[in-house]
């Protein structure tokens, strides 16, 4: 692993203690906005303020433990990267369902289930990607963003909540304007911590306008120091909620894998593709952190992508910073006054924070969807699933009239939209040819032919772009390497076979078998002999595919390239 020049402190390096501590504080400041998710969930469970405060302390302790699990590498668990743990919007919608349906026991039980599921899925990440292609992962993120925004608006606009006072509109406007203003026009640290600063300004505005009057007692009563002891621990399980929590667990696993890949790329100048050992270790730690949350009494957690982005921006990716983040979380969990202050957050401050967070989640989802070539099939999958997801929020009567076991699925935009997308994705596979033949009439047409063929088939199959690039290169390089041995009047005949997990390319050609050596020719051999160039071609083809094979059949040579998908 070669340290990129943009990194000031690499993974293995130890910055001065003050640098680690300051960077740790920055990460915690960035993550603090996500404390609103457990706060919202615990309130939905109908918990009194004093208890919410205690639960928040425990939750913050879980974040410290999760960050530690991720960086420490306990056996197979942990990536070893500076990748802090955070509460996540992904678990918000399912957790709200659980909290409303069965209170804390169901919330903790289902969180435990999600954590166990995520750890079980960790070794199957490649398979997961096939079932959840990027456009559906993007849709899931988009629906998570929408559910966060709508959960926020419900606090102020739902028919069963208290009408919004004038002062609340003012405080909400000031809070949102601060976050947005600092994000658009702010610079450096101010911009980076705009959400946290917005929360502080919101609290001050709420205090000035009298919204906090009579609510401050839990903070005054709370001690400065206290142990974050788990309370109200009991667990229950409801099979009807497995779908929403399973979707959240899969989304968490995919996001954790993406964040770990960001860490790998940030720390390695020669990074080409995700390294699976640390990725699987990272997802295992992520699932383990959610298990700890379920056991100790908190909602599910996930890796913090913005924190890794911050590390890349500041050039401080040292493992020591992750330890500092973990220690700071643990210390904060020992300050009941802080948790109490969070627990009394007025809705006029919380709602703008949720809307602000939702914006970036939604845009992130749209970007992931747009990164794919959207043919008619995929356009329908995304469009229809979005409408279905939105209908769950707009028409609550749908869930009310559904059979009891299906109500949580039909009542959640995230769950309904995702299930519809997965179903349509499978349905629309009908009619997509899985085995397609092509002919390269002359070697000089190989490049263009291969590019056009794989671009078209890749889109139709929904294949991963990186695999399509490798298959294209295989054909181009192969045709070039065998060109001089081919009879010009006899074409190269190819077949590409695709399923969710494999892409196999078979090329039948007139001419001698091509060698796939396991040793690269020297630079001099490549420069000075045609044979050197041909052996380099064989060497590259061998490493480009996950498996290669060549044989003689019916008087013709056959080369086969296999790509794991």
């Amino acid at each position, binding site marked *: 692993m070669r340290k990129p020049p943009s990194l000031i402190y690499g993974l293995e390096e130890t910055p001065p203690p003050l640098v680690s501590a300051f960077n740790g504080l920055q990460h915690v400041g960035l993550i603090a906005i996500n404390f609103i998710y457990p706060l919202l969930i615990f309130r939905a469970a109908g918990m009194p303020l004093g208890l919410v405060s205690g639960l928040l302390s425990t939750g913050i302790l879980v974040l410290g433990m999760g960050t530690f699990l991720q960086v420490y590498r306990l056996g197979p668990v942990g990536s070893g990267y500076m990748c802090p743990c955070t509460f996540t919007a992904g678990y918000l919608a399912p957790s709200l369902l659980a909290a409303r349906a069965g209170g804390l026991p169901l919330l903790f039980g289902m969180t435990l289930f999600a954590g166990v599921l995520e750890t079980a899925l960790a070794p199957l990440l490649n398979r997961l990607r096939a079932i959840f292609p990027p456009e559906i992962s993007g849709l899931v993120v988009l629906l998570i963003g929408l559910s966060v925004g709508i959960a926020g608006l419900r606090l102020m606009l739902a028919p069963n909540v208290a009408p919004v006072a004038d002062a609340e509109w003012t405080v909400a406007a000031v809070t949102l304007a601060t976050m947005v203003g600092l994000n658009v026009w702010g610079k450096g640290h101010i911009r980076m911590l705009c959400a946290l600063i917005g929360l502080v300004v919101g609290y001050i505005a709420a205090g000035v306008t009298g919204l906090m009057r009579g609510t401050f007692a839990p903070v005054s009563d709370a001690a400065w120091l206290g142990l974050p002891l788990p309370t109200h621990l009991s667990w229950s399980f409801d099979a009807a909620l497995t779908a929403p929590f399973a979707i959240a667990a899969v989304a968490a696993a995919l996001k954790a894998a993406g964040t770990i890949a960001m860490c790998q790329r940030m720390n390695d100048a*020669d990074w080409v593709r995700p390294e699976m050992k640390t990725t699987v270790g990272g997802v295992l730690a992520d699932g383990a952190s959610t298990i700890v949350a379920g056991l100790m009494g908190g909602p599910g957690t996930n890796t913090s992508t913005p924190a890794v982005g911050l590390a890349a921006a500041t050039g401080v990716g040292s493992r020591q910073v992750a330890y500092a983040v973990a220690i700071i979380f643990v210390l904060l969990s020992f300050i009941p006054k802080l948790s109490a202050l969070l627990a009394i957050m007025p809705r006029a401050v919380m709602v703008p924070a949720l809307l602000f967070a939702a914006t970036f989640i939604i845009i992130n989802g749209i970007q992931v969807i747009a990164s794919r070539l959207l043919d008619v099939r995929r356009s329908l999958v995304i469009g229809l699933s979005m409408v279905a997801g939105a209908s769950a929020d707009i028409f609550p009567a749908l869930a009310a009239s559904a059979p009891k076991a299906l109500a949580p699925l039909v009542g959640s935009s995230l769950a309904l939209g995702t299930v519809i997308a997965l179903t349509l994705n499978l349905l629309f596979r009908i009619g997509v040819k899985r085995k397609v033949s092509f002919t390269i009439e002359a070697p000089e047409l190989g490049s263009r032919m291969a590019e056009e063929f794989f671009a078209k088939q890749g889109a139709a199959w929904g294949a991963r772009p990186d695999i399509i690039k490798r298959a294209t290169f295989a054909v*181009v390089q192969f045709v*070039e390497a065998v060109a001089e041995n081919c009879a010009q009047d006899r074409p190269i005949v190819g077949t590409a076979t695709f399923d969710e997990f494999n892409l196999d390319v078979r090329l039948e050609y007139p001419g001698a078998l091509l060698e796939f050596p396991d040793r690269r020719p020297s*630079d001099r051999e490549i420069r000075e002999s045609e044979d050197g160039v*041909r052996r380099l071609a064989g060497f590259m083809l061998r*490493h480009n595919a996950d498996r290669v094979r060549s044989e003689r059949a019916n008087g013709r040579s056959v080369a086969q390239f296999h790509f794991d998908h």
Partner: protein
Amino acid sequence: MTTSGLKIAQGRSGAVCVVTLTGRIDNSNAKDVIAELDALIGSGEKNILLDLAGVLYLTSAAFRALLVATDQAERNEARLALCSVTGHVRDLFEMGGLLDSFTILGSRDEALARLS
């Protein structure tokens, strides 16, 4: 200059001659790359930067062209470096075990800063 699937453009930044390659480099146009670089080295250029940001892929014939040009530059006491070697193209360098056969210098700006 445009050949089949490859565009070769030349520019200058201070003492550095920047050659930008765009498209695919394969057997059909590798000789054009060698000719272009050969002419530059022959004309006395001492600092040449090859920007590969726009390259889709390189085959073994392309790598031979780059190795020949690098060798030619060394013989003429010139420096030939590559920049913007990222994504799939970097993958190909790694696949061929060729990352250490060339001087590869990060982004174009970083490379120009190093060579100037």
